[in-house]
């Protein structure tokens, strides 16, 4: 070795570095650096040409300054000039500066490219290597454009030096990653693959990175690499440790190359060719055997290198997942490592075993190590090792050991590191759900979870326990009892209060027989927590209270008292205030029957994939959930205890849910109402992202989306009298009524979809344009409506138009229904709307004198020909607005007809294909009382009645 003195003669550099090291403060350091930068800048700008040595010295200083975290904004030009030097040292420092400091979008790339071009054609291998290193380090688009054609040639040419080939291989890899379109491998493919056969191990090492990347992108074209890789691996594995000379590392032949070969094979399924496969299996067995042989050296490097290959071989065995014998051997080997004194090995063994656990061949073998793994969870001193142990327990869990594993994880949670608690909580919740045989165990587990790590229990977890309790009536009584007991604790977590409030609100009656948990005791217990809770929890408790009034009429006065007190009814939080006011009103106005309907027990939730599992996947990132776990979901998801249902299976149940929304029968409607009203006493809440949607485990607005809109209006109807609205509930009524007096506007809107309409009518004919606007950025697929065919794809942000022609055959009172179905992000969306086609749309206005009007009025004097309604004004009584509305109705507004100028009279003829129906209208406002009297007379009784209904909602 040459004697290398410190600083190697570059005294200036040595002085500068020691100055920096002696700086007492950051300020002093920055001052020193700025001084040096000024010095170098002046040297570069100076008239005197710098010699190669000085340039090199200054560039080294700049590199050092850059390393300290200072950006360097000059010197690039000088570095580029160094590239064209003939001296190797200068050229080298120029390339070094560029590869460290120049990024791929620099303006200097063109100049750099020129220098590279010269060096590549110089046929001087050292220069070529420098140039190739530079491309591999910078790798810009321009470089790809300039050299993508050239480099493959260099790579496969017979006379290229080995070191140049190595650089060329990784250079090409870089260009392929930046600009795959420019690197055309076609004709080179087979020659590149054959680099695996190159005599020189360095070339193989470099080429294999390139081949691995290319194989991942074009597996078919590079298929031939499998047999070549196997034979190469076989030669290495069976060689004596001295055969490979310099590529032997601590008696292990070519460890890095072996790892890479095994990694390349993981891009492909097991070889089909029997001979190749046999050879590979032999290799893998040899590797496993070597692990059992006594070590050739006591050095840790020896065992590390050997084990690096072993772990990679095991990864390949797991990837193939087809050789039970090898899988079990791998498992046993890893089992030994679980108790190894090297922490690194324990860590890697736990990690590797995690994937092994999901193979059906080795799952049982993995399970035999459960005690060791539990012990690791308890005693490992390194948190990342404990985390791996927790992961492995999760992976090896099945019905036979679920209780043990969940119990261990729960007890570990009490002392677990904060950083991993949330993930642990999710895992416990998932396992408890997946392997619950009796649901009382499940409920106990989740309540324990909240007790031990309440802060880490996310919404998904407690939503889920409620979903399950609601859906399983065999556990409801137990859940109520347990949660009641849990709430007795003087300090209990807010999540416990939430679950308690919800469950007692639904099922408190199941334990009310016991005097120790009588209705009032239950209520007082819940209410004792109220003041310590946050607003969302209080809102939930208020909903629980109103449910109590329904469950236990004897609590009514106590609860009303609570609702009535100022801290509720005048609460500064608008949500709480509104709930208090509305619940108070509801409880005092509505009859017991109505109350029972509104507050009916929650209907079962549609079954779907657990939202917790989704959360865990999200948390770990899409790539992080092992394929094994997903497969496991596929394997078991379908039938696990009947309620964890995977995506495909949830489809029919979603349709059930949506038929529930659209069904006109009153019972499901009421159920639906009670479902939404629990969380949405007011239509106000619909603007906020709905917690009830989350509770349902829906990630999008889903079928219920229309419900919050109607819920508000439904409640109003319940208050007045449970009248005709009941038959139309579940269908969007709101939008419909707004279109009685107008023809254009937005019919419906939720987070996903907006529907606008434009319509025109003449005589008994009409034409309506419907505009469906996708408000999301995601495509809707399978979009269909019941009206007529429409383009099944609606792009994100796009609008689709549909034109329908309407003919009125005879008079009618029910509006046509429009059903819309589409898939958004996999979830089926189903909407039912009333098309705003009403009988008045076919009015022809009729002008007539006062005399004629009253004559006809008298002619229509039979009782059934008249319909009358007296109602309160919903809007300010503005004469102009009233006039506009009446004109919008389609009739003629007759002036100077009624002796009272405050009154309005109108006349018109409704055109149907079958007949013409004359109608007269009189609207008498009473400004003092804020009331209207509306009278309609028509030659057909049903028409008068229908018009009266429609109009009474308009003013």
């Amino acid at each position, binding site marked *: 070795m040459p004697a290398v003195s410190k600083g190697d003669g570059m005294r200036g550099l040595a002085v500068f*570095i020691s100055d920096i090291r002696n700086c007492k403060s950051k300020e002093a350091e920055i001052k020193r650096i700025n001084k040096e930068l000024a010095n170098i800048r002046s040297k570069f700008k100076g008239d005197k040409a710098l010699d190669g040595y000085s340039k090199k010295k200054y560039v080294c200083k700049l590199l050092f300054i*850059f390393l300290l975290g200072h950006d360097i904004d000059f010197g690039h030009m000088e570095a580029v000039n160094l590239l064209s030097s003939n001296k190797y040292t200068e050229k080298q420092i120029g390339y070094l500066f560029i590869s460290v400091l120049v990024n791929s979008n620099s303006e200097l790339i063109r100049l750099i490219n020129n220098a590279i071009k010269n060096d590549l054609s110089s046929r001087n291998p050292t220069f070529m290597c420098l140039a190739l290193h530079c491309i591999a*380090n910078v790798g810009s688009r321009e470089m790809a454009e300039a050299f993508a054609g050239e480099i493959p040639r260099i790579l496969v040419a017979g006379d290229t030096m080995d070191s140049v080939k*190595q650089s060329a291989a*990784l250079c090409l890899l870089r260009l392929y990653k930046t600009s795959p379109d420019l690197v055309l491998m076609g004709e080179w493919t087979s020659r590149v693959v054959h680099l695996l056969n190159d005599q020189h191990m360095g070339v193989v*090492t470099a080429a294999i990175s390139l081949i691995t990347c290319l194989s991942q992108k074009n597996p078919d074209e590079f298929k031939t690499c499998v047999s070549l890789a196997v034979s190469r691996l076989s030669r290495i594995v069976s060689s004596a440790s001295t055969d490979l000379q310099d*590529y032997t590392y601590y008696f292990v032949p070519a460890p890095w190359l072996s790892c890479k070969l095994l990694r390349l094979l993981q891009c492909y399924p097991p070889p089909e060719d029997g001979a190749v496969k046999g050879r590979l299996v032999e290799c893998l067995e040899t590797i496993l055997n070597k692990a059992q042989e006594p070590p050739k050296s006591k050095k840790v490097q020896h065992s*590390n290198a050997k084990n690096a290959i072993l772990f*990679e071989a095991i990864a390949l065995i797991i990837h193939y997942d087809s050789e039970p014998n090898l899988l079990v051997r791998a498992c046993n080997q890893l089992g030994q490592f679980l108790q190894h004194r090297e922490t*690194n090995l324990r860590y890697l063994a736990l990690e590797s075993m995690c994937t092994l656990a999901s193979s059906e061949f080795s799952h049982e073998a993995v399970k035999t190590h459960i005690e060791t793994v539990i012990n690791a969870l308890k005693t490992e001193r390194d948190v990342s090792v404990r985390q791996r142990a927790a992961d492995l327990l999760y992976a090896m869990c099945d019905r036979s050991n679920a209780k043990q594993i969940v119990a261990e994880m729960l007890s570990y949670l009490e002392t677990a590191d904060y950083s991993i608690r949330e993930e642990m909580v999710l895992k416990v919740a998932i396992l408890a759900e997946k392997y619950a045989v009796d649901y009382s165990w499940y409920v106990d587990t989740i309540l324990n979870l909240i007790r031990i790590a309440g802060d880490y229990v996310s919404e998904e977890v407690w939503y889920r326990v409620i979903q399950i309790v609601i859906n399983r009536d065999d556990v409801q009584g137990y859940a109520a009892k347990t949660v009641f007991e849990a709430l007795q604790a003087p300090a209990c977590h807010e999540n416990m209060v939430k679950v308690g409030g919800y469950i007692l609100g639904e099922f408190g009656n199941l334990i009310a027989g016991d005097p120790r948990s009588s209705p009032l005791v239950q209520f007082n217990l819940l209410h004792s927590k109220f003041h310590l809770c946050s607003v969302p929890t209080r809102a939930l408790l208020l909903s629980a209270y109103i449910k109590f009034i329904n469950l236990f009429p004897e609590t009514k006065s106590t609860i009303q008292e609570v609702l009535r007190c100022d801290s509720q009814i005048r609460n500064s939080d608008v949500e709480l205030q509104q709930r208090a006011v509305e619940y108070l009103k509801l409880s005092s106005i509505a009859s017991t029957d109505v109350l029972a309907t509104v507050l009916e027990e929650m209907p079962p939730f549609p079954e779907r994939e657990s939202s917790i599992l989704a959360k865990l996947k999200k948390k770990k990132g899409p790539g992080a959930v092992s394929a094994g776990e997903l497969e496991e979901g596929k394997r078991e998801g379908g039938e696990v205890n009947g309620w964890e249902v995977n995506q495909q299976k949830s489809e029919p149940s979603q349709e059930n849910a949506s038929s529930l929304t659209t069904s006109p029968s009153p019972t499901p409607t009421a159920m639906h109402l009670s479902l939404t009203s629990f969380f949405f006493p007011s239509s106000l809440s619909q603007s906020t992202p709905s917690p009830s949607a989350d509770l349902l485990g829906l990630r999008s607005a889903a079928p219920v989306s229309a419900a919050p809109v109607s819920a508000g209006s439904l409640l109003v109807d319940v208050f007045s009298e449970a009248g005709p609205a009941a038959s139309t509930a579940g269908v969007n009524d709101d939008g419909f009524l707004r279109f009685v007096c107008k023809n254009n506007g937005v019919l419906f809107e939720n987070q996903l979809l907006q529907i606008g309409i434009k319509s025109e009518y003449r005589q008994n004919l009409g034409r309506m344009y419907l505009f469906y606007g996708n408000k999301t950025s995601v495509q809707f697929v399978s979009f269909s409506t019941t009206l007529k065919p429409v383009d099944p794809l609606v792009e994100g942000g796009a609008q689709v138009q549909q034109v329908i022609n309407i003919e009125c055959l005879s008079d009618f009172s029910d509006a046509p229904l429009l059903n819309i179905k589409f898939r958004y992000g996999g979830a089926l969306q189903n909407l039912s709307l009333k098309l705003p086609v009403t009988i008045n749309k076919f009015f022809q206005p009729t002008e007539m004198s006062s005399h004629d009007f009253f004559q006809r009025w008298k002619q229509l004097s039979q009782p059934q020909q008249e319909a009358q309604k007296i109602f309160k004004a919903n809007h300010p009584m503005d004469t102009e607005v009233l006039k506009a509305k009446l004109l919008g109705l389609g009739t003629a507004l007759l002036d100077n007809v009624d002796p009272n100028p405050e009154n309005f009279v109108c006349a018109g003829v409704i055109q149907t294909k079958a007949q013409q129906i004359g109608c007269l209208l009189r609207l008498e406002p009473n400004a003092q009382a804020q009331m209207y009297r509306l009278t309609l007379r028509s030659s057909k009784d049903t028409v008068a009645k229908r018009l009266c209904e429609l109009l009474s909602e308009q003013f």
Partner: protein
Amino acid sequence: MIKFLLMINKQGQTRLSKYYDHVDVGKRAALEANVVKCCLFRKKEECSFVEYKDYKLVYRQYAALFIVVGITDDENELSIYELVHNFIEVLDKYFNRVSELDIMFNLDKVHIMLDEMILNGCIVETNKNRILAPLLALDKMAES
């Protein structure tokens, strides 16, 4: 793939950094500070692999100097762990018992050696003699 290689001393000062994916200068400091936090305070009995964001950090300590390699999860941890040792042995061979100061004063040479071993985030050469060959040729030129 190897994303970056850092040499950091016990005081947390970066002595060498090599990034195989472009990282802004401003972000490098933050990343290096985080890496220091992740690796330097770990105890002897803790394992040498640390999960950090999307990478795994593989680190190895030599006296007061830490070498930290950031890798993606398609890389074999133990083989990288030994690659670090191989790199140190190369430095040792060249500098004859390498110290932190050797690295500081000969950054350019360390970079040459590193470029011979790792290129574009992939292992390119592991044979010590071949790694050192260009540098020795360079020294010969300088002498003559």
